[in-house]
């Protein structure tokens, strides 16, 4: 089932593995996942929409080849934080990020950083499946094409490989030229995942990818996430706490902080740790209230 990665990707990964620093993760649980390399390092970021401060002072590190889940009530800013990781917030008029967030050590919001280059490395899957009104094939080939791949044979290989990775190949291999809009919701979402994987990103950000799907399609996508995490780093926003416990290695719990005096609200990171610890032994009473269903 697992397709062989491209040779250059393998070489790149080996080089990365060789250059890996010591595992610096807080080992608060018994298990250890992934390689231990830090992918994202947010050191106290605040995100604003105009004068509204959506998120305040978020500190967290996200590690390679792990699945990190963001959970929390609506309006707590988890999607905002997620979208700041590949600079999708740049598209929102008035949005700005304060503070330091690094991707593999490079400041994401540095002066010379191009959001285009960032997004080629850090892909995103959205809440609602959003296939282009093109054929299934053209949807997958879209990313490779904008990266300059024109060779038909090469594109065929990428399309097949990505669809196999996204567990969609068997369902669509006979109708690659058919419109992607004819797919069901679950298929369309897997198509969107395949489209993201086709550009071979380093990180895949997922914004509630299963919220519009039924349990069977959800489970297909969760299996797919576990399958591909050996090759990618995944960050997922979810409203479904069972989903976080099923798929994620680490969980960040966000909540809303109300300021009664100025009547404002902002999102804060309450607790971040290994998923098992967050759900079984939360240190913060707010986390405990949320994961046990007493709030939110």
């Amino acid at each position, binding site marked *: 089932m697992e397709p062989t990665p491209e040779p250059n990707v393998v070489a790149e990964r080996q080089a990365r593995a060789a250059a890996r620093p010591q595992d610096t993760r807080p080992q608060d649980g018994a298990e250890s996942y992934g390689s231990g390399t830090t992918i994202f390092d947010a050191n106290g970021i605040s995100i604003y929409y105009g004068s509204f401060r959506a998120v305040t002072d978020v500190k967290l590190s996200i590690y390679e080849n792990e699945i990190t889940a963001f959970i929390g009530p609506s309006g707590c800013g988890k999607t905002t934080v997620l979208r700041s990781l*590949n600079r*999708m917030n740049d*598209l929102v*008029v008035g949005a700005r990020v304060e503070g330091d967030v690094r991707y593999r050590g490079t400041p994401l919001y540095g002066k010379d950083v191009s959001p*285009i*280059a960032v*997004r*080629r490395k850090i*892909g*995103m899957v*959205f809440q*609602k499946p*959003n*296939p*282009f*009104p*093109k054929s299934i094939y053209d949807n997958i080939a*879209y*990313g490779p094409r*904008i*990266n300059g791949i024109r060779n038909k044979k090469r594109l065929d290989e990428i399309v097949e490989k990505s669809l196999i990775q996204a567990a969609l190949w068997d369902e669509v291999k006979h109708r690659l030229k058919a*419109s992607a*809009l004819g797919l069901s919701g679950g298929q369309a979402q897997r198509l*969107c995942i395949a*489209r*993201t994987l086709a*550009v071979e990103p380093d990180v895949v950000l997922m914004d509630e990818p299963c919220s519009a799907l039924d349990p069977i399609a959800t489970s297909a996508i969760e299996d797919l996430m576990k399958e591909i995490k050996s090759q990618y780093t995944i960050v997922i926003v979810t409203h479904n706490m069972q989903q976080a416990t099923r798929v994620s290695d680490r969980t960040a719990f966000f909540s809303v902080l109300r300021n009664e005096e100025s009547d404002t609200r902002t999102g804060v990171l309450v607790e971040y740790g290994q998923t098992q610890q967050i759900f079984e032994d939360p240190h913060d009473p707010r986390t405990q209230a949320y994961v046990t269903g007493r709030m939110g």
Partner: protein
Amino acid sequence: MATTPQQPAVDLREPASWRRTKNQIMTVLMVLAMLLILVPLVFVLYTVISKGAGIISGQFLTASIPPNVLPASIGGMGPAVVGTLEITGLATLMAVPLGVLGAIYLNEYGKNNLLSRFIGFFADVMTGVPSIVMGLFIFSIWTLHFGFNGVGGAFALACLMLPVVIRSSQQMLSLVPDPLREASYALGSTRSRVTLTVVLPTAIGGIVSGALLAVARAAGETAPLLFTILTVTTTNTDVFNGANTALPAQIFANASSPYTGAQARAWGAALTLIVIAFILLVVARFITARFTKVGR
């Protein structure tokens, strides 16, 4: 579950009120309004077809325009047909690309900045300029310096079409859902690529049909042409030199003549013009339907 006969009857009938009566009154009013609109349309079509159909022939569509005194069986409207096609065609070449590019700027690049609000405002003002004023404007800046020629007429028509093309294209672009743009950005597209590969293909059906409607509209304009191309009776295939003629201008000139031959030619020209506009409309419908089927 057994039914319980003791249950009190529930009254599910419509409560006594004006609602039904109002509904009936409104339905009748709407049907009347539709008939009211149909009356002039059917009347115009009937008159033009009954008076113009008899004169239409291959000769009528190609032969030169004879002096007004000659009977309807001699000569035709060839120069006007050619003039209308070349002047409207040239105006389309000027207005449609410019208008579509303008709409792309307004919707994709300018968003709500000062320049785009400025352009949008003046496009709206331009829509309100009477066509005869537009003719006078071109007359003063073009015709006075370069004489009567087809290009002047095309300029005048293009000025009339431009705001319509801008506004209709912009509307179509704004209907393209943002998630599609985001999907493309998330794969590392630049703004120009998002526009070219996602936004334009999605909106193209609507843009084309909007443009064709503007063309059909311009083809029927008389006033701006009287100032800029004059009217001649022989075919002028050179749009850059010499006076020209067009169907609306010939309808005006011939219909106001006292000779029955000229009046018959005016009816024939009117029918030809309606048929040209009708063909454009059908093509517009066809394109919209076709692209919407594939697109959505």
